[in-house]
């Protein structure tokens, strides 16, 4: 796919406006994070101006804290398990709602949209009541199931948005050329879904990793990272440690993202002239 920007002429003011707008969006998204990162080096327990003196104390304390390590480990493992299950269920649901016609379709669509529109507090209390009714012990399993229930509709929504506008001509062409259903799925549909799949995978991981409300109410005696954060923030003197570890977690994720981007670009350069977005399979 060639770069469309090259065809429709962009005047200089338009280009400048574009850059300014993008910078504004980045500030909106990352401004707070940048400020918090700055204050994680501040030798004070309150996140407020002015900046006092520089210190690495908080990072040291955070990394030595056993509860931090334990909770991070639990949350990462949990999110890693929840993510593929949510993506799978969400993709199945998206297919079911957009690609076929059958009587129950609207019902399925409404059902899948359900967890997106009910407040999390209600879903959490409902799930807790449900688990205690069926006498299921609260633990990683109940948390995992709860996360999947709220995460996969999000995946379904994103994939559906992509599928609704899917041009059937490529698919029909493949079929005309004799491709089986599996081949069509693998070589035509999934590649087109790839960016949406990637985005929803990251969002599903994030939903699970950062979730406090649902994790608190459906969990038992295991400590997850958001639970640790919320309960620790009760004391003012813990704020900088929480800030330090959160900044570290964000930095790691940013690093991973940049690494992924750089690898993709290298692969694209090797297949010169190909749009990296098309390389996503």
């Amino acid at each position, binding site marked *: 796919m060639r770069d469309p920007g090259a065809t429709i002429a962009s005047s200089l003011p338009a280009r400048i406006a574009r850059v300014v707008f993008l910078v504004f969006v980045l500030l909106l998204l990352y401004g707070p994070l940048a400020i918090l990162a700055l204050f994680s080096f501040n030798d004070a327990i309150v996140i*407020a101006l002015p900046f006092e003196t520089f210190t690495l104390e908080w990072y040291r304390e955070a990394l030595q804290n056993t*509860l931090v390590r334990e909770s991070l480990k639990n949350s990462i493992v949990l999110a890693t398990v929840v993510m593929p299950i949510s993506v799978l269920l969400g993709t199945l649901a998206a297919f079911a709602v957009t690609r076929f016609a059958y009587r129950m379709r609207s019902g399925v669509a409404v059902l899948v949209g359900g967890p997106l529109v009910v407040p999390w507090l209600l879903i959490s*209390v409902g799930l807790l*009541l449900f688990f205690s009714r069926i006498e299921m012990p609260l633990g990683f399993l109940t948390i995992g199931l709860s996360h999947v229930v709220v995460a996969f509709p999000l995946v379904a929504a994103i994939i559906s948005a992509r599928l609704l506008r899917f041009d059937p001509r490529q698919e029909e062409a493949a079929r005309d050329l004799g491709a089986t259903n599996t081949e069509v799925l693998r070589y035509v549909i999934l590649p087109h879904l790839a960016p949406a799949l990637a985005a929803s995978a990251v969002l599903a991981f994030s939903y699970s990793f950062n979730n406090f409300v649902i994790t*608190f109410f459906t969990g038992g005696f295991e400590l997850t990272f958001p*639970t640790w954060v919320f309960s620790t*923030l*009760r004391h*003012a003197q813990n*704020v900088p440690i929480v800030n330090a570890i959160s900044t570290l977690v964000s930095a790691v994720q940013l690093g991973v993202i940049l690494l992924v981007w750089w690898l993709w670009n290298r692969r694209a350069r090797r297949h010169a002239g190909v749009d990296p977005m098309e390389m996503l399979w």
Partner: protein
Amino acid sequence: MRAVRRTAVLASLAVFALIAAACGSSSSSTTAADGSPGPVQGQVTLFGYEDNFVPEVIEPFLAMYPDLDVQTAVFSSNDEAVTKIQNGFHADVINVCTEETGRMIDMGLLQPIDTSRIEGWETLFPALKDQPGVTYDGQVYMIPNVGGTSGVIYNPDEVPQGIDSYRDLFEDPALAGKVTLEDSAASVIAITAMALGHEDPFALTEEDIAAIRDYLIAHKSQIRALFKGDADFLNLYRSGEIVAGFGYHDYRAAMEREGYPVEFVPAEGSLAWICGVGLSSATENLDAAYAAMNYYVSPTPQKFYAESYTYVVSDQRTIEELDPELVAELGLDDPTSLDAAIALQLPDNYDQWLAAYRDFKAA
């Protein structure tokens, strides 16, 4: 002769069987058949604030009972904890505060505590022991271990004329838009009640509450923000958003340690929060549960709380272990100072309090 021997054998077998049954009957409960405490073993589950489970606090307990399987879960607010338990979560020993014991007892979530099994019961400060929320209908439902008082905190640099009354917070035009109150129906309604002259802020009629609500709405513009927790308060104070407000004594200590200018006055009356341990109504392993409760009201964790967070401690024995300066800072050298404090508790007409507070926030 043979008949007697047969009877004797049968009798001894019967006694043997009874003893075997008595010993093997309890699975999770290790209380012996006559109710006296047994060995501490099995599992105990604890549900509390995060500071209950930091290494300095939990490790000594784990070392005392190496055979005990201790499971812990944390919460970040009392309300969440009660809601979770109400809806099906069970933990043997719960970190409770006088604010919600009433609610929990009404819902049947707590069982009475046998104070003869609590070693520290006798050495607790009477001022903390006798507060409402600890005892209901003559039975003890909570053993206090820490507490705190409250009042008006203000910045003497910004408010040189000083403040000595909750009324000033509401009516002094110099403080307009620079005041903070706690985001809690209990404390806001109670201090307004005291500002308007009520002796007992928790004994309010419907008319009283309506008057308080109208007063609050009329003076809403004085208030910049409603804070939740000490980190929030400190942030508002430090960033200059507020110069005065309702706050707890440990906020004053924390800010002094950071070098901020701060003054603390009890104003018309000091509301006290008192927290401690409660026993869930579904607990079966009572020996382990009492062991945990005894530990949490003993001097070891209390010393940590006093030194780290400047909480007021409940056990008089802890005083001996603390630095005298800290004791003076906490006001513990004069225990009668706690008598004047009014415990944050649940009034009977709490739903009216909530409605009034909601109207205030929505106005």
